[in-house]
């Protein structure tokens, strides 16, 4: 066996036995590239995902709702950071990833290219969009790539708050006026299909699925997860008192699952390739935030450099001082104190 074959065999063996790949392990270049792409797209989705809801922070209907929404949007930022951190363990550079996002060379989830038109959208995003995200993400806690799996465990714990606050917000609105119930139904009508698209193209049109499953970077197929999401969501919709906008949606006794109508994959393709209602706006806003923050990043660095050289000088003058007398008493010296 050559060294290359040996490394490859070791990698395959680790993955087949469902053990984790860790950052400095040897891995095939395609695995590395796949992981970087998957993690970066996921990170970008979290970061862009701050915008649709961030849109409503200043107009939240109460201080309670505002505090909740702020915490949620802050979590999305945090999730983006955990994920960029995981991508960096594969040798990706965070500045490069941001550059790829703001120049549209890497994608993010198409769901965030839809507008949030009323406050019920905040609730529907929590319920449906975060609900779909949870379906997608729970299996990723077992991703073969260790740092990604660990980031996902952290994220999934926090997503549960996101979904529940959304559902509670909607329950509150449904107990309100007819106008408020109409707002909820309107938001559901607009968000239902895009939520189903979040699971990606149907299995017969998902060429990378087989390899991804074998490598343990994907645990279930897109259609399987989509079905799981529908099955979970229908009873929640009933309880809430909203109608999911699909005339084909009905319980299939034989399958023990819900049948649902066809997804408009042309719309999905159009939105993914940049022609959704908000694509340009989302990327432009992210770019502006990055560009406008440049002076802060530079100033912080300049401050750090100045402080460091100051410290350095102090240390040197410390050293050139004559040695102090040894302590006269026997008080124990606090040696090796640790942070």
């Amino acid at each position: 066996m050559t060294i290359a074959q040996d490394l490859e065999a070791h990698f395959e063996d680790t993955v087949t036995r469902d053990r984790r790949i860790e950052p400095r392990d040897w891995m095939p270049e395609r695995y590395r590239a796949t992981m970087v792409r998957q993690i970066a797209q996921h990170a970008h989705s979290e970061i862009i995902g701050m915008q649709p809801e961030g849109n409503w922070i200043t107009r939240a209907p109460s201080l309670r709702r505002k505090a909740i929404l702020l915490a949620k949007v802050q979590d999305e930022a945090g999730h983006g950071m955990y994920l960029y951190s995981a991508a960096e363990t594969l040798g990706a550079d965070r500045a490069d990833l941001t550059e790829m996002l703001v120049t549209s060379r890497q994608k993010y989830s198409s769901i965030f290219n839809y507008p949030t038109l009323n406050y019920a959208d905040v609730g529907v995003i929590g319920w449906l969009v975060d609900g779909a995200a949870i379906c997608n993400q729970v299996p990723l806690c077992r991703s073969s790539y260790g740092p990604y799996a660990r980031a996902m465990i952290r994220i999934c714990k926090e997503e549960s708050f996101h979904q529940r606050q959304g559902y509670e917000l909607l329950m509150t609105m449904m107990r309100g006026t007819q106008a408020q119930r109409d707002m909820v139904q309107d938001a559901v009508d607009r968000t239902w299909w895009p939520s189903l698209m979040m699971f990606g193209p149907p299995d017969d049109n998902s060429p990378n699925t087989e390899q991804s499953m074998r490598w343990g970077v994907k645990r279930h197929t897109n259609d399987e997860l989509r079905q799981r999401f529908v099955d979970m969501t229908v009873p929640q919709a009933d309880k809430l008192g909203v109608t999911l906008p699909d005339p084909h949606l009905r319980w299939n006794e034989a399958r023990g699952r819900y049948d649902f109508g066809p997804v408009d994959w042309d719309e999905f393709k159009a939105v993914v390739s940049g022609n959704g209602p908000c694509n340009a706006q989302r990327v432009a806003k992210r770019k502006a935030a990055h560009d406008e923050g440049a002076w802060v990043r530079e100033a912080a660095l300049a401050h750090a450099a100045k402080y460091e050289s100051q410290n350095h000088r102090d240390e040197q003058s410390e050293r050139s001082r004559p040695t102090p007398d040894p302590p006269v008493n026997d008080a124990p010296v606090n040696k090796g104190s640790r942070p």
Partner: protein
Amino acid sequence: MTDRGWPLYEVFLRGKRGLNHVHVGSLHAADPEMALHHARDLYTRRNEGVSIWVVRASDITASSPDEKDPFFKPSGDKVYRHPTFYDIPDDVPHI
């Protein structure tokens, strides 16, 4: 000066008193002080820690994580370091 300036810090958290610090991830910051503040905001939003260490990633010296690494071989053949290596009759108490 470019955007690439902020160095990478690795973050270690003590979840509660009595536990060791555990590595939780990394972040970028201009200096150690800022790294601590960012670590608090990023990794302890829900009381996940009572103490944080941050260390410049470039200051860490690490072994290769690969199990096959001969680095860990020396302990492999020293079974006598484990208590189960020693046969003690069943009727000897408390050992």
